[in-house]
């Protein structure tokens, strides 16, 4: 069955530290990949997505993610985090235009001021 794994359940960093959150998926065919963020008390919102083309995707708020097909990975990165990045981050995948979107269990990121 299709699944999404997020390795880090809870990450604590200081401001200005670099961030990398892991995401791996299990499906071997063509995939669409997403990262969503949920700030405290707010709705889930899209950070970035990959459909095709350049495997390095840039999103909002300085986030980026790299699709590495050989590793079935789509890790999220940010070179220098801010206190306002404190949130829960979810990786998601679907297999094509009309397939359902499956989410990982999320990573809670806490940035120390």
């Amino acid at each position, binding site marked *: 069955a299709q699944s999404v794994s997020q390795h880090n359940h809870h990450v604590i960093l200081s401001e200005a530290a670099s961030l990398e959150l892991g995401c791996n998926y299990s499906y071997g065919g063509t995939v669409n990949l997403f990262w969503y963020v949920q700030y405290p008390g707010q709705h889930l919102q899209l950070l970035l997505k990959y459909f095709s083309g350049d495997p390095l995707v840039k999103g909002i708020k300085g986030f980026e993610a790299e699709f590495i097909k050989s590793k079935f990975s789509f890790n999220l990165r940010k070179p220098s985090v801010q206190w306002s990045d404190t949130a829960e981050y979810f990786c*998601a995948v679907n297999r094509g235009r009309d397939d359902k979107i499956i989410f990982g269990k999320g990573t809670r990121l806490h940035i120390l001021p």
Partner: protein
Amino acid sequence: GAGVSQSPSNKVTEKGKDVELRCDPISGHTALYWYRQSLGQGLEFLIYFQGNSAPDKSGLPSDRFSAERTGGSVSTLTIQRTQQEDSAVYLCASSSQGAGGPYEQYFGPGTRLTVT
């Protein structure tokens, strides 16, 4: 604004009662999803409607759960004979579809269900 709306925002019910949760997607969005969010479990996929196709019900945890989408718009998630383990936040999302895949999902505020 014309975002995804869900009602009620909170629902407290007694074990064994039935509940109905409603989702109003963004007008024109052909895809509608239901997820369940509980602590430590992330977003658990429940059901997916896409246009006129048969819904993907593969995520429904038991036959006590059902959902319908009327007229390609409003959706209702029904949980029969609720159990305490059904307590969670139920999220609805909608999206439009492009040639290569779904566009951004827009999430509603969720319904927090508490079964006592």
